[in-house]
């Protein structure tokens, strides 16, 4: 274990995750008005119609795959009798489809962003940086999968990357595991850590506004005029007799 390993696989992950968590809290407190998807559908919808669902549904499945691959220890799948071969066929099959969808969607979206005039002029420097890091992360990840399909499996990520990732969360990170993981996984992990660190400061925050509450709330929202629009609570100066009316 040398110093570089500690920096890359112990210090960097904690910095990145701390920035991720605190950054989101700060951004939400400070910049609710800037917290949006910044949709460009108004400008152009023909390309978006293909690119956006491909990318978004693809990346959701990719996320699901990561939750399984990183979150579930090998011993658990062995315990339920899922063989190594079946697991990999499943992971690589679903992963490849989701990955290809994501990449195709991303390609369409980047092409659109560059070629459609209004969309390009609505692209900020922040967006460009985010696109670079996000694309790099996806490409590194995808190349790992492709190499796996082609049979160049150097190491099993479930023996290296996954335990390392979990070890971060029980505060006993083991950088040795990542050193054995091979360059492909190392690059993927590094770019992902950078992505997490810039995440709260980019438009990616809209991931955390997934409107799941829509299923449970009533259709029409009534609100009193208005305790939330203003930025400070008004002084009351008197007490209401017999309780409030609301």
């Amino acid at each position, binding site marked *: 274990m040398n110093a570089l390993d500690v920096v890359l696989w112990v210090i960097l992950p904690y910095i990145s995750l701390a920035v991720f968590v605190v950054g989101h809290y700060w951004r939400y407190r400070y910049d609710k008005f800037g917290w*949006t998807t910044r949709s460009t559908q108004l400008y152009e919808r023909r390309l978006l119609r293909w690119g956006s669902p491909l990318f978004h549904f693809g990346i959701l499945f990719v996320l699901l795959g990561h939750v399984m691959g990183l979150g579930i220890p090998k011993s658990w799948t062995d315990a339920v009798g899922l063989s190594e071969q079946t697991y990999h066929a499943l992971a690589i099959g679903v992963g490849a489809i989701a990955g290809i969808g994501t990449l195709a969607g991303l390609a369409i979206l980047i092409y659109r962003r560059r070629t459609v005039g209004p969309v390009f002029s*609505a692209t900020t420097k922040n967006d460009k940086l985010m696109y670079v890091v996000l694309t790099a992360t996806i490409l590194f990840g995808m190349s790992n999968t492709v190499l796996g399909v082609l049979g160049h499996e150097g190491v099993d990520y479930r023996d290296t990357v996954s335990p390392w990732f979990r070890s971060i969360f029980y505060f006993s990170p083991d950088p040795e595991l990542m050193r054995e993981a091979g360059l492909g996984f190392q690059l993927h992990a590094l770019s992902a850590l950078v992505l997490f660190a810039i995440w709260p400061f980019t438009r990616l925050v809209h991931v955390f506004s997934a409107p799941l509450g829509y299923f449970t709330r009533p*259709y029409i929202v009534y609100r009193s005029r208005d305790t939330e629009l203003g930025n400070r609570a008004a002084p009351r100066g008197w007490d209401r007799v017999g309780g409030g009316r609301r």
Partner: protein
Amino acid sequence: MRVMAQMGMVMNLDKCIGCHTCSVTCKQAWTNRTGVEYVWFNNVETRPGQGYPRTYEDQEKWKGGWEVGRNGKLRLRTGSRLKRLLTIFSNPIQPSIDDYYEPWTYDYETLTNAPLQEHTPVARPRSLLSNEPMKVEWSANWDDDLGGAPELTQADPVLQKISAQVKQQFEQTYMFYLPRICEHCINPSCAASCPSGAIYKREEDGIVLVDQDRCRGWRMCVTGCPYKKVYFNHRTGKAEKCTFCFPRVEVGIPTVCSETCVGRLRYIGVVLYDADRVLEAASTPDEQDLYQAQRSVLLDPDDPQVVRAAEQAGIPRDWIDAAQRSPIHALINRYEVALPLHPEYRTMPMVWYIPPLSPVVDALTGTGHDGEDAGNIFGAIESLRIPVEYLAELFTAGDTGRVTGVLRKLGAMRSYMRDLNLGRPADESIAAAVGMTGRDIQDMHRLLAVAKYDERYVIPTAHAEQGPEREEYDSGCSLDYDGGPGMGGWGPFGETSGGSTPIAVENFHMLAARQTTDTLAAPGDREQRVNLLNWDGKGSPVGLFPPQPHERPGPHGEDGGGVGPDSPAVTDPKP
């Protein structure tokens, strides 16, 4: 019975001259910012015409509003909640900028920078979205005054609904104007479509607003609103809509569009309605019954039971008084001459219209008859130049009887009042023929023809003790925001980041900027434009009108550095 109060508006289309003053002043007040260049909270459409955005009334295409499903239940036309969330990444039926129009400016700099040349330099149009030169091909009122008719007009979804026979009559051209703002519906489908729950209806006055801090730009409201009166700000990525000028209405002054209406055709007032019966009324099976259903939801403010229920619901006494004096309640329920716009969308709109009658009198007079004789008018209404079928498609889901009834009342009023004006005895049979009394007709005439400012606008002020913060009151102390996002510039994520600026702070800066500006007009600096929200129609704010000769020297001209129309190059010294 759950009584709620609702602000509403009635527009008398007979008086609309299509001058677009309402649109322009509204735009000055609310949407003269980047990101909403294409947005008109108030627009005036020529009917027949495609409207703005193009053909928005074609709900087969745009899927706005509610419909009654096979099980008799009310549901959004866009389908289930799940379906909307699944199409969140790319909304298949959102109008794109071409359906509104691509906003543009002109390359004015060429005019001053062009070298000496044989031909006069031209300021070419440039897109405000991409900054590229563009060809101007459409705008918010491209078919104004039947421009482009009949080709463009044929795409009018309302015209397409009415029969071929009426279409042929269209060869005898007719038109009228339809000013539109947000309907502030009792059953708003935009709010129901919003995945984030950011669009809400205010409990106190029923105004429908978008919470800018909660909106996440999912764009479902744009599709959900059948009137297409929720717009997407492409700069901030948030939805914006007509606010019923709440900062003005809260202090008892009418909306900017009403205040500046040249024809004085707008009426603002409060109605009381029974919130418990809204769903049932909106689910009425037959579309043509929706007008009656909505009227039945509106309560009679003079009924002692209603008054008691309203008091129990916490509606302040002055609001109940205002509801009793409400001009819109009178026009909707007492005289029954106002009709809702497209009740078949089932959103229970609260901006109603008195259908236009005008051409009938002239047309009759033109044929040698007495145009204001009651018998002649009644007979002519069926064969009006503006086909009753067309009006019925707009206001009663196709029920021509209702529209004819309203037009007969308006005709009877003219006839009856003419006798009075000419000093002849009143003919009560005219009033009786439309189911009114002479007293009713005279009251209605007063409201429609001579009503003064405080009769047209009966607006109770907001109660500070109800919701603690009136917007203006809440943001009253601008020092609270010193150094904050309101006090200069935006946060680190670009123009739209940081908290939203309270209106009072924005106004403060606009006024300050205007008072200390170096030049008479600096179009490059948006903050120097006149904010009409500050103007109550009295006096003339600095910058609104060009300076008059007798006003020189200018506002800061104690040392004589006058700024006048003939000395635009002279700059005003800063104080």
